[in-house]
């Protein structure tokens, strides 16, 4: 598993990457999480890496191995309480990976992901996944970037700063009723006032892992 993570890390951070996490939250606390990783701008580089047997002394996984590990994650997550409709789209032509799942509560979502990660890896990620990155009281959503993502970004060296600067992380939260306020100064509100989006480049996110943290308050029902 750690080799897969090494690959993802290389793919995620040394190449020009676009990440999007898109949370749709219903009034009753249920919702949908969509997570997309786009490496199409670096497909030459990713293909070059995949053509190697090893990189930096570590074996490079094949597409089949990557796909198998992703599908194992999906299978485990789909079996968790309160999680349904887990879907994954993998494109090894453009290197775009799209994940989505429905959840009955954000607690179920976080627990489900935590258990799934714990089951497919014994890596440090397991510890980091113990933390919660979302909370919802019916009116206020407090969200951050999952620590197992920010930790990896933090560990990355500054040597690839230029690559990181062109990478983009987009975090979107969508609701069933209008947003009354939000704290993050980088955030923008959609014209219909039902969604908040925060975007930054991966370099700045490395410098400040809390850059995308946000507290969003909705209008009363």
């Amino acid at each position: 598993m750690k080799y897969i993570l090494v690959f993802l890390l290389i793919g995620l951070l040394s190449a020009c990457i676009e990440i999007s996490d898109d949370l749709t939250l219903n009034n009753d606390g249920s919702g949908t999480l969509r997570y997309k990783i786009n490496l199409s701008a670096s497909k030459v580089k990713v293909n070059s890496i995949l053509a190697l047997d090893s990189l930096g002394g570590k074996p490079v996984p094949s597409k089949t191995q990557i796909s198998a590990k992703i599908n194992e994650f999906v299978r485990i997550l789909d079996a968790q309480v309160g999680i349904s409709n887990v879907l994954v789209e993998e494109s090894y032509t453009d290197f775009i990976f799209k994940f989505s799942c429905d959840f009955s509560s954000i607690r179920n979502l976080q627990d489900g992901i935590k258990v799934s990660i714990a089951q497919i890896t014994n890596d440090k990620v397991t510890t980091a996944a113990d933390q919660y990155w979302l909370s919802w009281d019916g009116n206020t959503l407090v969200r951050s970037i999952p620590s197992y993502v920010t930790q990896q970004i933090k560990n990355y060296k500054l040597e690839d700063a230029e690559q990181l600067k062109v990478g983009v992380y987009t975090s979107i939260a969508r609701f069933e009723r209008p947003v009354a306020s939000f704290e993050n100064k980088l955030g923008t509100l959609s014209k219909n006032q039902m969604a908040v989006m925060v975007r930054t480049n991966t370099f700045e996110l490395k410098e400040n892992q809390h850059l995308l943290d946000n507290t969003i308050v909705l209008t009363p029902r």
Partner: protein
Amino acid sequence: MSQHFKMVLGLVMALLFGTTAQAQIQQIQSEQLLPKDAVTVFSINNISLLQKISMDELVNYEFMSEVHQELFDGSTAGKTLKDAGLDFNQRLNLFYGKSNTHELTGFTFGISDKKALFEVFDDFQVVESPLAGLEIYGTFFNQLLIKDNKAILIRIEPTMEHIDAVTDSIWYARGNEMPFDFFEEAPQEEQILDEQTYEDNPNTNVFPEATENPAVKNYYELRDSVQVMLQQAELARVIDEIFVQGINLYNLDPRFAAQLTHNAEGVFYLDNARNLDKSEGLWYFQTVLPTLYKDIQELYAGNVILGDLFLRDNKVDFEVEAQYGAALGSIYAQMNDAKFDKNVLAYIPAQSPAYFTYNINLEQAYEQAYKVLLPLLTDEKNAQIAMNVLTLELLNEFINKEALFDTYKGSMFGTFNGIKKVKTKKIEFSYDEETFAYQETETETEAEMPIFTLGFTTARADIPEMVLKHMARLSSRIQRFENYWRIDNAILDAAPLYILNTGKLLIFTNDEDLARMHPKGYGKGALAKKERNAARQSGFMYGSVDIPKTLDRFPTEVLTPRNAEIVSSLKGKSGQLILTSSETNTEHTTFKLSYSYVGAESTGKHLLDLVNSLYLIYTLNP
């Protein structure tokens, strides 16, 4: 001092010291300690560093300080290699050998001051010697054997297969059962003794009973003992051969002895026939097809690679001769009997940082190999091989060999033309302002890619053309243009591959410039006359690498940070590598690899600067 380091030290010293050639011819000494089982030997005559670079200058290199730290511990602080007691008037010979049961490595050298030597080899203990006049010193891994003013430092390792075979034999002969619990499904829980319990209750005096008899060795202890005994027995055999019977590689192989008479700074010897004999990869042949294996052995008989290293003004030359027996030689001779295809020269740009040409006659090589190898295979009484022989013979009869070998004649060329930006496509995520609804948009982008060209000589351009035409009907990614074919996304799923079918050459490249602008060659922009002649006059192979140009254009981002740093540090060094082959006949082929550079510094110093650069990078980035 680490044991492993001493072996490495031998290599470092071998690279640094030697004697004058005159002295070697008159005073052959340390090489007579080389075991006959040595398959590979690197023997240093005289790198002339002591003449060209003073010892004081040498010891100032950063990598030498490391050597000093390892060699000289606290009790020998302040000393340098000058104080190591080595006799620089004798050769230093590094060797590696492998038999079916053992591996042996080490080096032989001369001694000028034994007392000084043991201040360096300070962890060697005296071992009782079976021979008068032979001193033996040992550590856990290595043995140092000294006679008069010559020494051999040797490490003998029995192969694991041999150790296991002997251990198993003893183990089962003693009536033991299989030592591994293969069939136990549940692992036994380990009982851990809590010492605190007994310390807190000293009066109980109840310690658990030993579960095994300490006087009887378990399997692993037995295996360790076997390993030590095999090492000792092999050492005794080597000592007897070298110091009693006078059997050594120098006396046994006249080719090696003759090579040592060369007035070269370094000599390389690799007995490929014996290397093949000990090759683990051929165990299947050895065990299942012994007759065929014996035939292959005979085929490789006499296959030895001999090399001379010369340090000349602003140049390092490595001249290699591959010798072989009549059967193998007849195949090589036919293969290399090819006329140089001058058409390739038009497609090598003058500014190409690295390129090669390769001329062989595949048809003649095939016919000769068929003639030599088929009888060997036919004699083998094995069903699978018999079927393969039948298939081969049928194909030989039915296939139009003329068409096949006219299409692919065997000669080729390749160039590296640096890095260029190629157009590719990417997907961008976008979100509308109203609801942040997500969309994907395809846009153009550029990616850096190394540009390579590979071309093959052909006399049947119609055949690849026919293949491409049919392929184009099957896939829209393959398109015909006026002078070339283009296959989209063929390179790393991102960039197109261009195929030029000139009638005499079939060229594959990812260089759009070559395909579109130079389909008939680079004309005046091709290789200069001097380089063209050099390539043409070389034997079956010619290669050229302009080191700074190649490294300047090398995409360091595809390397690990450390390797990228190494490449970056070497960018400051000038230098050119030229590989040429000259004569090929039924007895031998000769090659020459030349490294030349521009600058006032001496050749030895230039090499040492390179070594030091690499050392600094590795030590600064542990």
